[in-house]
């Protein structure tokens, strides 16, 4: 197993008001490392040299918490479909590769430092209706509401969203449609989600606009980069609910 030498152009930005710039680094990796472990190696080098390490978010490092993510050569989470950067392994790169690393770029996600952005806008979209209102203790016996297997499976497909925001980063309009529609679809497909179905879609879509996310034109870039394989079909489904709600709901 030979070391692979890589040239990295990494976005360095001290804080939200700093204009930021690319800085070039050299690093030696091996094929079994994850992309983040390669950055760990770079950071250990930088610390020893007395240079500030590159800030990036990560937590579970198994692709489920959604905390990590940045652009590698313009592509959210890099070149492998279905993998977050923590699950992207260096065997997909080769000696001599030059890689450019940038944080998610979207008006709604201010850059906090280097590759770290503020994604609290996603939490606020959920606050605008991405739940089923059920008080603890008020639930009926679980099997008293039957859910057709197909509905449960499709709901699960949408619910698999990890909230990483790669969809926004990939979208030319920085739209949060895939994220928003994934929750609208997950809850809208289940009988438990019906009472609030139309209020939910109005609230969440409106909040998405307030946050500064763009409109969706169904380019499909989001689906192509989604590490959780959330299907594009959730968006037309959300749009249908949204139109129906817009004409029928009194707000």
């Amino acid at each position: 197993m030979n070391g692979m030498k890589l040239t990295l152009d990494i976005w360095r930005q001290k804080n939200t008001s700093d204009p930021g710039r690319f800085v070039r680094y050299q690093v030696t990796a091996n094929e079994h490392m994850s992309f983040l472990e390669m950055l760990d190696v770079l950071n250990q080098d930088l610390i020893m040299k007395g240079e500030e390490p590159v800030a990036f978010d990560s937590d579970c490092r198994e692709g489920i918490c959604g905390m990590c993510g940045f652009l590698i050569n313009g592509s959210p989470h890099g070149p492998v479909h279905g993998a977050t950067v923590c699950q992207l392994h260096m065997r997909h790169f080769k000696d001599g590769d030059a890689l450019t690393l940038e944080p998610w770029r979207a008006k709604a996600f201010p850059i906090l430092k280097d590759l770290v952005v503020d994604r609290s806008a996603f939490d606020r979209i959920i606050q605008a209706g991405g739940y089923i209102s059920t008080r603890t203790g008020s639930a009926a016996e679980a099997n008293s509401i039957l859910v057709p297997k197909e509905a449960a499976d499709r709901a699960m497909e949408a619910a698999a969203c990890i909230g990483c925001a790669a969809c926004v980063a990939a979208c030319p309009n920085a739209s949060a449609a895939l994220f928003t529609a994934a929750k609208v679809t997950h809850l809208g497909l289940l009988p438990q989600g019906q009472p609030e179905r139309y209020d939910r879609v109005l609230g969440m879509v409106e909040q998405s606009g307030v946050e500064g996310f763009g409109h969706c034109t169904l380019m499909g870039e989001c689906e192509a980069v989604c590490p959780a394989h959330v299907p594009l079909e959730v968006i037309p489904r959300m749009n249908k609910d949204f139109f129906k709600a817009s004409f029928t709901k009194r707000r």
Partner: protein
Amino acid sequence: MTLNSRIPLGPLEKKWTERKDHMKLVNPSNKRKHTVIVVGTGLAGGAAAASLGELGYNVLNFCFQDSPRRAHSIAAQGGINAAKNYQNDGDSVYRLFYDTIKGGDFRAREANVYRLAEVSVNIIDQCAAQGVPFGREYGGALANRSFGGAQVSRTFYARGQTGQQLLLGAYQALERQVASGQVKMFARHEMLDLVLIDNRARGIVTRNLETGAIQSFVGDAVVLATGGYGNVFYLSTNAKGSNCSAIWRAHRRGAFFANPCYTQIHPTCIPKSGDYQSKLTLMSESLRNDGRVWVPKKKGETRPPDQIPEDERDYYLERVYPSYGNLAPRDVASRQAKYRCDEGLGVGPGGLGVYLDLTDSIKRLGKAVIAERYGNLFEMYERITGEDPYTVPMRIYPAVHYAMGGLWVDYDLMSNLPGLFVGGEANFSDHGANRLGASALMQGLGDGYFILPLTVGDYIASGGIAKADTNHAAFKDTEREAKQRLDTLIGVKGNRSPDSYWKELGTILWEDCGMARSKESLERALSKIPSLREEYWKKVKVLGVGEDFNQELEKANRVADFLEFGELLCIDALHRNESCGGHFRNEYQTPDGEAQRNDAEYAYVAAWEWKGEKQKQELHKEPLVFENIELATRSYK
């Protein structure tokens, strides 16, 4: 002082009802006059914060991640147990209770575990109502799978992402409360210390991880739901940010730390591949439903697995434990894997691996069925190893996974410090010396939805909590100490990174206090850790400043606590002269290598009291009284 577990009197099955019937209540219109601080947003913290908010309390909720939805509960894969008996296979609250006590090797409190089994059925109802997309049968009813340590199918699941879906359910309930203003959420805030006034827990000091600002928050009660301490081993299945700082700081303020030596080593993880490795990845125990674990019978076997004939394979779990087979509990399965590798029969690089083989099930059920059950796990395995588990058996090896120990709590989940409640993995309460699969999610949600919201209310209603604000000297002093500590870390300006110390500590603990421990190994670890800690404070290198987004400082602060906690872990392991569950002492084993308990001398909870820097911690014992279950040698044969 004596430990009072405050277990209600009366028959086991009436205790929780009895307790609830006599709790003091806060009048609905008075609840808004009380503030509860909840640290952590996982299953226990998120569920507690949401439920307390629904009740009308003001809740301040904290997490160090960028959003409450990132809490490490999200990574749980296989499922959640509940005594629903939907399968008509003879399950009951009693049986779940019994399995959990036995699975914990008779080192948990009967009353707590029985209550957990009781509320398990409510948890499933609650989560289904929230829209958690559980696996379903074709008729629309909820589906179940089997898990280790049980002979009934009682595990509910959402593909291999059960933790994610349950956490998102709690997160959505939480965000509903945030929207209503009942819960104030503080993401990217790390708790630095606990504040006591009149010996009651009254608040916390936090660091805003975006700005570095240090700030105090006051409340009537504090709930810690900050997870386990598995990362003290550096390599574990825990998230990188998981740490023991919140519970350790509380311990230093007087909260007793119970059974730290009960650490769970999970049998089915992807083996380590190199020194740069930052974490280990779990492959769900549910795979053992359809997978068979084996090693070659011949040492130094070089043939690829598919060319090793059946009669040259040792399906050792099926051989040693004919009745539970591949579904033997985690501690038992891990130890057997270790024995095989110690015997030189391990597979893969360094001989540190065994096969987990689904070939037979793929033949029997077809690839599509297996893909539906485990597709995402197989994908993850392939992403990490570059091998396709549909054609090549997976290689697995045990790894640190879960902490059964934690802060000592009474029946109400309150620590020995009045007003300090502890939920989920952060407490010691329900799993004894070993946790069964799919029981962590059950405990986290049981604590968060159904226990803490009531017991915290009872504490507040009992009165005696004086008015206080963050100008109180206790807050100012604690803020100053917290800032001083961070300044000291930055001021060392040494030549080794926090990571390098963390790895060294982890190696010591894995080798000397890991899957098997001995007096000799523990004494060795105890001679190394204090000097490593001393060196840390002289040579650690932390760049940047405190008043900034500074991930190295966050890490350095957590590693400093691991260096203190790791010592207590070994002290506890050394004092417990028996083997039980996840705590295996080489000196105490049966002739066939099983854990040998010593009930006469060690059927107690070991609760350690901090006595000050460089002072020996004092051991307090809470005897475990078994009124309903007969202590027996745990057998899965």
